[in-house]
């Protein structure tokens, strides 16, 4: 059974302008309906497989993003949605923007666009889903992080 048949999402809005944010939400609504791919927007890192982040990273949400990422079980992939999440976008020169999501956690898929279109987000998710299977296989092969205690 493929793990990729049931990708559950965690969406966090970094320092976005809302544009990409609402497009992500729009993907779950009837016209785009990502549930066709088994996608469930869980809202809980501990249930999620895919971490969708919109917006860039600023000094306050840096820790939040890191923490949410650390609370997701393996295998997991990170999708940066929108130019802001890819590299800070139009705000990258702002004093409070550190850059794209990859400045704090590893990003697997970049979805460009300002705002990213729902179709593009779907493409991104589909690509991410394929990665999930690969990561699972790697995990089984023992390459993945073995159980470790964080305390």
């Amino acid at each position: 059974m493929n793990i990729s048949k049931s990708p559950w999402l965690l969406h966090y809005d970094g320092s976005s302008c809302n544009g990409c944010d609402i497009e992500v939400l729009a993907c779950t609504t009837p016209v785009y309906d990502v549930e066709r791919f088994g996608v469930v927007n869980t809202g809980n890192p501990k249930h999620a497989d895919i971490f969708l982040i919109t917006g860039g990273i600023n000094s306050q949400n840096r820790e939040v993003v890191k923490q949410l990422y650390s609370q997701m079980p393996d295998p997991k992939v990170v999708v940066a949605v929108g130019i802001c999440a890819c590299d800070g976008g139009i705000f990258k020169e702002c004093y409070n923007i550190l850059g794209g999501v990859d400045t704090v956690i590893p990003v697997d898929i970049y979805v460009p666009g300002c705002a990213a279109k729902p179709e593009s987000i779907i493409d991104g998710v589909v690509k991410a889903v394929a990665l999930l299977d690969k990561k699972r296989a790697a995990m089984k092969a023992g390459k993945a992080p073995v159980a470790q205690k964080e305390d």
Partner: protein
Amino acid sequence: MKLLTFAKTELHNLFSKPATRLYPQEPRVYPERTRGHVENDIDVCVFCGLCSKKCPTGAITVDRAAKSWSIKRFSCIQCGYCVASCPKKCLCMRPAYTQPASEKGTETFTQEPKDDQSA
């Protein structure tokens, strides 16, 4: 007691075709104005660098010496300012958007040397 106001819509939805666009099985046709990605008709470009100066995100680099024009697609916000400012009107905005990828690549257009062409 009105409790079932939504029942009509609900049942109507059940028995009619879902509103879902079956993307990606059925590709989407975009309106012509859709701002998807910037394209350069590189043969017309004179490498003046104006677009690169105007671009709010610094997505464009122009190398006059190498006659190359490159764009960081994962930085471009499709604002169209470059298109509007290009004196040669060689830039245009096309509906198709850049595909998601796992690397933030740069796309470079290089003009073939004109004399080569004549040769």
